[in-house]
């Protein structure tokens, strides 16, 4: 999703092809998908995952990390990699609404943008229909 001319503002790290799918959807909707780096955990051990995230923080300046599951291996890897670095923000449970908010808020620095999109992400999930609620 990244072009060489665009500086990545955030990392999405998720199971299977979810990260690439989310970035693709962001790009279709906003044209800004290229500010998102994406990673899958397929075939990676915990040490490799942590090293990959650490490299992106230390050498690529990534300050916002989005992961899919609170109990997921990317969340564990990110928390280890960002330990002691208060400039990095991790958002877990990412969804498309969160990423859309993030990429559109380029007035904020990436860490602040990541914090700001959490409320939008929470509000975006809703159940509609299905008849009366069970007691």
């Amino acid at each position, binding site marked *: 999703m990244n072009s060489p001319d665009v500086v990545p503002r955030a990392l999405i790290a998720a*199971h299977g092809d979810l990260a690439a799918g989310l970035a693709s959807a962001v790009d279709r909707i906003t044209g800004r998908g290229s500010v998102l780096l994406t990673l899958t955990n*397929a*075939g*990676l*051990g*915990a*040490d*490799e995952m942590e090293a990959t995230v650490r490299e992106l923080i230390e050498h690529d300046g990534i300050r916002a990390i989005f992961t899919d*599951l*609170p*109990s*997921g*291996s990317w*969340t*564990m890897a990110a*928390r*280890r990699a960002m*330990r002691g670095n208060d400039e990095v923000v991790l958002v877990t449970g990412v969804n498309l609404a969160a990423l859309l908010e993030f990429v559109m808020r380029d007035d904020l620095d990436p860490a602040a943008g990541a914090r700001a999109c959490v409320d939008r992400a929470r509000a975006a999930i809703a159940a509609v229909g299905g008849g009366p609620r069970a007691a």
Partner: protein
Amino acid sequence: MPLELCRIDDRLIHGQVVLGWGQQMQLGFIVLVDDEVAESEWERELYRMGVPPEVDVVFETVKGAATRLAEFQNDPRPGILLTGDVESMVRLVGMCSALRSVNIGGIHHKNGRVQRLRYVFLSPEEESALRALESQGVAVSARDVPGARAIPLSDVLSGKGE
């Protein structure tokens, strides 16, 4: 029997364990056996955060887990015992003859390892250690999630697994 799964998984507690296995088993507790994690409050808290509140997590060294194995096996709740590497599981089985089956859930790429399955990479030393476990009567198979087929160690090592 409540300790239903003894699993080698280098990611330890993660989505497959908590959701994939945990929800199907109605998991009550996890025994995370790792000498380094057991000694680090930060690491223990990290793993605890990934587990729903209704699931207890016990952190033990290999030696500590061996000492408490009967207690875990007598717990009426379904449980999973995890080690992060082959060597820890081999040491544990060596101290606990009651452990009769081992699940290879995920051992990923590292220098010196050869890929055997999509989620299993093994060094020659790890292969020998797993063969030795089997020769002691321990059933060793690979299976990442409950919906997958359990692949016997012989098939894993002969390339017939996938």
